[in-house]
């Protein structure tokens, strides 16, 4: 096999050397398999950083799936806490799990959160032929018979997607959360498939996961969980205007190891800001249903601390943790 491989060298080394020749290359860890939101963040940010010449070599994306992001988190905290060339994709799922102590005792202050560059609004959708026309219809049906509506979502039981319908029902005064049916499937697209197929009655997820299906008319969004309607999707009412005061937005951003210098931290914050302001990122956000949401540096860290504290309170209130 060795000799064969050496022959392969001739062809592939020439092109591949370019990828590895730079001694200084930033790395972005996506703590999940390719295809999801974290992977998207790493690949888009990495590409734009390189396009804007903010890094001198393409950002290497590493997929480190494990324990819902916990493996990457512990790797950064324990093994790479001083690596200034490392960024890690994060989102509401990260803070939710930290708040629910799902990372094996790790806490949010063991890394530094650099910034958020966009927000993915939470949505609750049904198949196009569903009897529910408004969020109110659905809530009434659940109140009358909790077993009649099953939700499908991409996150685990108790995770961010599961909490969205629970928050809505709680806002409607329905507190018996173990009665609400939720099945956890492999991602948002899968959840839609199950809902369109009629196996579940509703899907809970993020706007970016449903854009194509909304356009093709196969699903209808009952509500978007933002403070105001999302630009470009102005015909989707918010839960708030339907009388359910629930806001659940999945921010997309990055964290870096704790041990890097303030200079390096601020460097990443500035770079992230530049990415957020680039036309390329704006186009990408619009195509994927993301709402603008930029917050970097120390301000973002404060915001994160608040979010974690709020999530702890909320999870306890709903009863997802005890």
């Amino acid at each position, binding site marked *: 096999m*060795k000799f064969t*491989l*050496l022959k*392969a*060298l001739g062809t*592939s*080394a020439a092109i*591949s*050397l370019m*990828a*590895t020749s730079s001694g200084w290359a930033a790395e972005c860890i996506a703590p999940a398999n390719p295809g999801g939101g974290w992977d998207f963040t790493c690949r888009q940010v990495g590409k734009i950083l390189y396009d804007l010449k903010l890094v001198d070599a393409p950002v290497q994306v590493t997929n480190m799936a494990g324990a819902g992001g916990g493996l990457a988190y512990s790797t950064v905290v324990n093994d790479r806490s001083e690596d200034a060339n490392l960024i890690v994709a994060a989102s509401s799922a990260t803070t939710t799990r930290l708040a629910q102590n799902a990372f094996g005792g790790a806490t949010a202050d063991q890394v530094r959160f650099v910034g958020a560059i966009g927000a993915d609004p939470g949505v609750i959708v049904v198949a196009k032929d569903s009897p529910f026309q408004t969020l109110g219809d659905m809530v009434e049906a659940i109140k009358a018979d909790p077993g009649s509506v099953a939700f499908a979502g991409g996150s685990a*039981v*108790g995770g961010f997607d599961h909490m969205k319908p629970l928050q809505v029902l709680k806002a409607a005064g329905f507190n018996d*959360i*173990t009665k609400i049916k939720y*099945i956890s499937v492999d991602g948002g697209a899968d959840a839609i498939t199950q809902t369109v197929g009629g196996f579940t009655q509703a899907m809970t997820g993020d706007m970016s996961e449903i854009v194509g299906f909304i356009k093709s008319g196969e699903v209808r969004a009952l509500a978007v969980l933002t403070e105001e309607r999302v630009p470009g999707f102005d015909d989707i009412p918010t839960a708030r205007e339907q009388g359910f005061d629930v806001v659940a937005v999945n921010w997309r951003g990055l964290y870096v190891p704790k041990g890097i210098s303030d200079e390096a931290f601020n460097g990443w914050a500035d770079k992230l800001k530049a990415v957020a302001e680039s036309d390329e990122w704006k186009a990408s956000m619009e195509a994927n249903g993301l709402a603008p949401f930029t917050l970097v540096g120390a301000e973002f860290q404060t915001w994160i601390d608040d979010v974690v504290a709020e999530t702890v309170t909320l999870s306890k209130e709903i009863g*997802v943790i005890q």
Partner: protein
Amino acid sequence: MITGDRIFGLVVILVALAYVASATQIQTSFLSDPVGPRAFPILIGCVAAICGLVMILRPDPEADWPGLRTLGRLAVALVALVVYAYLLKPLGFLIPTAVVAALLGYQIRPRAAPAILSGIGLSVGLFVIFRFALGLGLVALPRALMG
């Protein structure tokens, strides 16, 4: 006297029972679904135990087990591989790979000189391929030596 299958069947039953016992200890959550996290593993453990029982009752003809010397060689190879796994990170790729590749080569054909040469050759050759052709981030030498 057929023993291989019977011993293995017994081991399977013991492991399966331990597995079932361990499965009953799995914590569940009050948010759990009707099936819960224990049922499926317990089912698997029980089926495995039945299979183990069948192996004890109806064993196949005895396998051709190697002699003690060969088993010793296999044990050496096993230990070498485990040590290699732990040394790969602290000592870098080149040195442990050369040593272990030479050792394995020697185990397959007990001649020292060619084995050592092929170990060194494999170590350097594979490093070049992985590092430069496939772009994997391997470390060549111990970090201490690299400065």
